[in-house]
């Protein structure tokens, strides 16, 4: 379908038969129908829930008694307002830190001759694969004011200073650490695809490397920086695990922890939760609108029809400084929490009388790993997760390519609506959207409910914005002249996409599909309502271990998950490097 309809897209087909002229509206219509099914229909269910007291499936639309009670209750509740304020502070601070780290990192990896760049690039993505709950748990093991490993070590070495990650600054730091890879992913691919001649021109004109960085390089990749920071901000807004583990002990409540309470209480208050979720969506809508205002009317095409290799700045001896900075970051973000998780996974119990107890080897064993692999659900969940991840990455990748191309490379009527519809899900918190999907799709004819496909469908819908945004960055940078050249040579649209767009955007496509896979593997909120005993996924099992109060098994299982994801990431990095090299050669 993609191919046939897309083939009819160029506006320059005046001589085309009438059937071809119909293809563009048909194509847009098809995309709108898919998005309506995936986004609008569940969202309507959510609105329905927010402004009534009924469950649309149980009570039917006939019993719809709209009222603004929940909205008024939510707006009038000072605890909601406090949670809202806390969320903005934590996510705002976290985003600023994430931008600083992510941008510095992508610059170090892509544009300098810092040693061991490949290793740094791979390792810096690890935090992305750590489920938020595990990150929160790891940092509570490290930074708890009372029992944290860091504080135990400080006490042992006679230093008076103590860390306290059960605080707002702890939340901001962990958010910044863990969501920097979002910014990195966007900015690194933009830097990689940037024509270095612009920077060379700046330096020829007498600007220093530093000035060039801030006046040419960063402004040129502004859309990537904005897209990355917007995404990381919104993702942070929707995270439950980190504030649950670090905020709760300090009585710092954010919107997600509040929503979780609403859905976990007995009886659960889904309708009120839906009202809070809609508040959250409004904030996001404003941010997206602001982003588009900032970006409108500016061209960010930096990939033109000229061969180039990303320029590598020779830092001289300073390259060891950038290398050390990268190492410090990796130590804090990867090594420390991994040590905490490894200790938790291998130690029978996490009680340390003093720092020497950490090295008491008798306290370590494989008991938690044995126990998780004794559980038959472990292998079932790993297998299911891989299946759902692949289906989501492929289906979502194709859909996101179709949407991204339509939005960014065509002038067809209706593409603005497609853009809007495909951005909406980013704002809906997972815990609430899960029930919306259940309400929306359980009644579908056929045997969809209870299969792995309904999970994949939910993940595709939920992560469309992330995938489209990350792909769009690649599209925005490929200059129109390259496609036009292909058309002049007599190629059709389909052929142009296949020979020009796909190869040039391949690093972006692989990155987006990898992102989608990772997000699908981690997703808990929507899984919880759609899985059955045959379709259990790893995220659900991980929550079972956590809710069972078993930090050892939680840590052991998350290490297993991290290793699996790490291996897959290695494969995709290798694939994307191969494709980047072949693209460079072809150029």
């Amino acid at each position: 379908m993609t191919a046939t309809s897309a083939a009819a897209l160029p506006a320059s087909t005046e001589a085309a038969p009438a059937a071809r002229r119909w293809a563009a509206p048909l194509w847009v219509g098809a995309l709108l129908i898919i998005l309506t099914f995936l986004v609008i229909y569940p969202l309507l269910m959510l609105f329905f829930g927010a402004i009534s007291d009924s469950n649309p499936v149980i009570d039917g639309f006939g019993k719809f008694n709209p009222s603004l009670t929940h909205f008024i209750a939510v707006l009038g509740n000072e605890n909601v307002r406090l949670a809202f304020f806390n969320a903005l502070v934590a996510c705002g601070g976290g985003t600023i830190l994430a931008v600083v780290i992510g941008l510095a990192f992508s610059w170090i990896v892509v544009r300098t001759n810092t040693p061991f760049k490949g290793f740094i690039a791979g390792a810096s993505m690890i935090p992305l694969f750590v489920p938020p709950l595990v990150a929160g748990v790891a940092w509570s093991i490290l930074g708890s004011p009372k029992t944290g490993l860091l504080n135990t070590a400080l006490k042992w070495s006679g230093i008076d200073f103590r860390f306290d990650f059960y605080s707002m600054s702890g939340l901001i730091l962990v958010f910044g650490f863990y969501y920097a890879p979002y910014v990195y992913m966007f900015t690194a691919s933009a830097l990689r695809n940037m024509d270095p001649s612009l920077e060379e021109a700046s330096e020829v004109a007498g600007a220093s490397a530093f000035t060039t960085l801030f006046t040419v390089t960063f402004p040129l990749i502004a859309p990537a920086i904005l897209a990355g920071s917007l995404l990381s901000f919104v993702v942070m807004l929707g995270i439950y695990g980190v504030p649950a583990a670090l905020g709760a002990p300090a009585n710092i409540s954010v919107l997600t922890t509040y929503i979780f309470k609403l859905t976990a209480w007995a009886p659960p208050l889904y309708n009120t939760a839906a009202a809070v979720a809609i508040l959250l969506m409004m904030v996001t809508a404003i941010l997206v609108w602001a982003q588009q205002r900032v970006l409108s009317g500016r061209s960010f095409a930096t990939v033109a029809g000229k061969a180039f290799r990303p320029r590598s700045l020779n830092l001289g001896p300073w390259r060891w400084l950038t290398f050390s900075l990268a190492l410090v970051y990796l130590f804090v973000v990867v090594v420390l929490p991994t040590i905490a998780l490894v200790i938790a996974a291998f130690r029978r119990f996490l009680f340390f009388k003093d720092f020497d107890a950490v090295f008491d080897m008798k306290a370590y064993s494989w008991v938690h790993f044995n126990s998780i692999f004794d559980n038959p659900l472990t292998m079932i969940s790993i297998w299911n997760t891989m299946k759902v991840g692949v289906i989501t990455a492929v289906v979502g990748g194709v859909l996101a390519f179709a949407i991204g191309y339509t939005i960014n490379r065509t002038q067809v009527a209706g593409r603005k609506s497609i853009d809007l519809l495909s951005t909406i899900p980013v704002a809906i918190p997972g815990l609430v959207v899960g029930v919306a999907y259940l309400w929306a799709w359980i009644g579908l004819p056929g045997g969809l409910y209870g299969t792995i496909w309904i999970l994949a469908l939910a993940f595709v819908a939920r992560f469309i914005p992330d995938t489209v945004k990350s792909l769009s960055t690649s599209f925005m940078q490929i200059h129109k002249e390259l496609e036009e050249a292909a058309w002049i040579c007599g190629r059709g649209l389909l052929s142009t996409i296949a020979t020009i767009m796909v190869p040039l955007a391949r690093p972006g496509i692989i990155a987006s599909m990898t992102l989608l896979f990772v997000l699908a593997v981690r997703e808990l909120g929507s899984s919880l309502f759609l899985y059955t005993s045959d379709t259990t996924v790893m995220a659900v099992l991980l929550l079972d271990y956590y809710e069972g109060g078993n930090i050892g098994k939680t840590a052991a299982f998350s290490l297993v998950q991290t290793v699996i994801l790490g291996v897959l990431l290695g494969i995709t990095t290798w694939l994307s490097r191969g494709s980047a090299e072949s693209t460079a050669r072809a150029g």
Partner: protein
Amino acid sequence: MKRRTILAGIAGAAATAALPARAQQDAFGSKELIAAAEKEGGLTLYTADFAETQQEVIREFNKRFPKIKVAMVRAPGGQLITRIKTEAAADKLGADVVNHSDRGLMLEIADLFQDYAPPNAADYRKDALVSPKLWPGVTLGWAIAYNTQLVKNAPKTWMDLTKPEYKDKQIGQVIGPSGGTTWTRIMFERQVLGEDYWKKQAALNIALYPSGAPLSDALVRGEVSIAPLLYNIIFTKIVEGAPAEAIFAPEGVPIVPYADGITKSSKNPNAARLFMNWRLSKEGQTFMINKLGNITSLSEPPAYPKGWDPKVIKVWVPKFEEFDKLRASWMEEWNKTYGYRQ
């Protein structure tokens, strides 16, 4: 005391083992029921209990009935109810058996369950039942747990948890609104330990946790030193050698009888019936007490947890009417007293 517990356990096990094969079968169901259940070959259990705990139960059930496979769907309490209601409305309820801790919520959806009573129905406490369709397959009880490495002078009673020597975040507590199990405990505190119990305890500046599992973990790690916990949450950790201990207080043990039932839409009604019969049988209950740290709603318990002296310790079951009626207003007061933001 210890010897008595062990003896009781052995006696229970011996009694079951000594039964002739025929009598054993009758305890779980007729020959016809077992044959029909084995023909169905499996069932699906929806549970709000911990997944691992329920897996242990299934494993033990399979020792006696290996031909019946039990698939499980587990979700936290409120989310499970929403899912059951929605599936039932769409005519796609996948559960044969539902196991849930909140009797109030289960009573609201009692229509979804079929008439059922286990062979030993008469042996169950009347105050643990809320509907003739729903049965306490699981019963949990509240204990006082402490970290043995950190607490020198261990608390012995509920009233001890108001002593100033345990001030400044030494005590951890699960928040009141977290669910039916906690509501049972805080109701007990006010009705049995006194109107001002909450106030006295809150004055000690205690740490609040969203649910029992993270609190039990925090206790083992030493984040808090003392915590009221459901005994089964800390029991398995103590057995595995964690630096923790738990006692049952003499003022009473608030217990939480679950409400389990067989759905009307069950596709494996015989297997479901046999599974429920076994869980509610003396054998099933003894297993859960000895291996999982549960309590039981049987009038004459077949076994007692470690440290439980039946002459001293009395269980406390909330009056169901009050359980429902007082909840909202008392919870609001609890939140205010403990400074919990809702």
